[in-house]
């Protein structure tokens, strides 16, 4: 991992320009402009509200704003996760003309894909902040957990991005597999619901490394208590393992990229 950081340090300008390219191209010609960034989270939240209403009907309890807020808070990071994985998986194969012609660290492709999604995420987050402020939730000391949880999410995304982008070069159907998994992953991830609703069996859902992060955000922001320590450490374990393994693997496979495209 240190080797990769050194490489990227030397090519940070390239990383910056590629990220900027992805952002500029996306915003430049679309009438929607910056609405793009909140479109996905907004859709996810709306879907969540529908699900919540259905649940409320079943249980006979009326729906309140406090039930909807967690969905909005979880929707933005989830949208970031999905979009980052989706774009980074194809980042190397889409730039094959550069991969086969010019030498520089290939990791800039998946990483710049993640960076450009981070830009969207930042915009979505600022909208969330406004909503949270106006919702009248009093801030607690547990908000300090939020940066840590987001860092874990980004670390997981970076690790997966490196792994999947390389895999998609060698096996072209990886992207279809990723697509299918991402489509249905929302049912296995506590975005519309919270793990607590499942009682003890909910623990199984927390095995999904993104789940503890989303539940932690809900806890720290809306519920006002500390995230579950055990499961936070579990998610951190994933982040650390991914960051230790995937950069090394990526660098080892890199010399074969140009021949496999």
């Amino acid at each position: 991992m240190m080797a990769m950081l050194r490489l990227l340090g030397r090519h940070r300008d390239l990383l910056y320009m590629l990220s900027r390219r992805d952002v500029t191209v996306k915003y430049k010609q679309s009438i929607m402009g910056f609405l793009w960034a909140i479109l996905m989270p907004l859709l996810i939240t709306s879907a969540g509200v529908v699900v919540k209403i259905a649940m409320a009907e079943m249980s006979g309890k009326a729906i309140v704003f406090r039930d909807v807020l967690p969905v909005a808070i979880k929707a933005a990071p989830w949208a970031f996760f999905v979009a980052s994985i989706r774009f980074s998986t194809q980042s190397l194969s889409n730039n094959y003309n550069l991969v086969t012609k010019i030498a520089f660290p290939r990791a800039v492709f998946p990483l710049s894909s993640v960076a450009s999604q981070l830009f969207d995420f930042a915009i979505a987050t600022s909208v969330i902040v406004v909503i949270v402020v106006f919702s009248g939730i009093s801030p607690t000391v547990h908000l300090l957990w939020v940066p840590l949880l987001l860092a874990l999410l980004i670390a997981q995304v970076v690790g997966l991005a490196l792994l999947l982008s390389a895999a998609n070069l060698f096996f072209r159907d990886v992207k279809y597999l990723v697509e299918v998994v991402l489509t249905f992953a929302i049912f296995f991830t506590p975005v519309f619901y919270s793990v607590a609703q499942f009682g003890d069996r909910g623990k199984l859902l927390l095995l999904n490394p993104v789940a503890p992060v989303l539940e932690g955000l809900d806890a720290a922001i809306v519920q006002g208590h500390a995230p579950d320590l055990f499961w936070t450490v579990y998610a951190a374990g994933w982040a650390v393992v991914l960051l230790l393994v995937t950069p090394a693997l990526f660098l080892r496979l890199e010399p074969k990229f140009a021949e496999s495209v």
Partner: protein
Amino acid sequence: MSDIVLEARGLHKKFRKGELYTSLRDLVPALAKRAVKGGLDKSEFWALKDVNFQVERGEAFGIIGHNGAGKSTLLKHLCGILMPTSGELVVKGRLSALIEVGAGFHPDLTGRDNIYLNGTILGMTRAEIRSKFDAIVEFSELADFLDTPVKRYSSGMYARLGFAVAAHVEPDVLVVDEVLSVGDFVFQRKSVEKMRQVMKGGTTVVFVSHNLRAVADLCKRGMLLDHGTVSAIGPVTEVVKTYMERGTEGAADDPTKDVYVSRVTLRDEAGAEAVQFDAGQRMIAEVEVTARRATERLAVVIECRDEEMYEVFNTSTQRLGAETVDLAPGEKFTARLALRLHLAPGTYHFGVYVYRYDIQKNYDTLTPAKTFYVRSLIDVRGVAHLEPEVLSQDKSG
């Protein structure tokens, strides 16, 4: 004292023909098959075989060879895109390649944005690009279109911008592949001038091209690649000569032909076989024609074509007033023609036909039969050499 900046030692590269497993869907059955059958044999071939060469600092080194000789593969190794199967490649300093100008341009971004994007892809820092920005723009002659998305550029403009960025990277070793064919004629001249300037500045240049004239003009030393091996290395004129003498001999004999061109030789005035001539020099072309069956009233047609195979010149023994020739089976004759080469510097192809005019029958075609190279002490371009002189340039008024 020699100062080697680029060295290849025993470079080998193995490629696999045929399918790699490009999807998981294919991999799973293949693995199963492998488990049952044992090792899978793949047809492998050597794209590069024991390639050795050294390039000194400040040298211009040319690499020539037919298509598929391994030039591109070697280039990709130089650039670090491919890794050798065995052997070693040592590069000292920053190496930059003019392989594909404009690689990484994004059509939706403006010229300005693309200069930065392309520049960083080629290994420059943003600060470096900022300091060279004006020079790049001036060189590209696209100052008025800087804020236009490059998708609205013509292909010439696109190439110019790409070359302008690439030409300002200032590497220690510059690898050039075929880019001199980029853009319009005026810009081509600018590119060649820029290359010379870069070389004068002490940059080592590795030049790969089909354009023998450009290679011979720009480089002192060169290497000929043939089927992945180095078949000649040394002074560029020697290497170019080896290349030209190769592969044009004896068109495969077709027994159905009544008459065929059995030998073509180009000689200088002294009678020695030659491939390089000075503009204005006389060239002697010897064409030997052999008959399998009796044939009558044969004439030899000769032609010269330029590098793009455009016809530059064409005549025949009969049109020049010479007698036609009748041949008995097994008999042969040799036509010797002299040509004065009022040609601009460049590579030309010499072609031959055996023709009978009264029945308009073409017996045999050998084109190009030979390739020759014309050089000139004065700088003229185009096709013809009109032996120009500046008589005066007086100011008046």
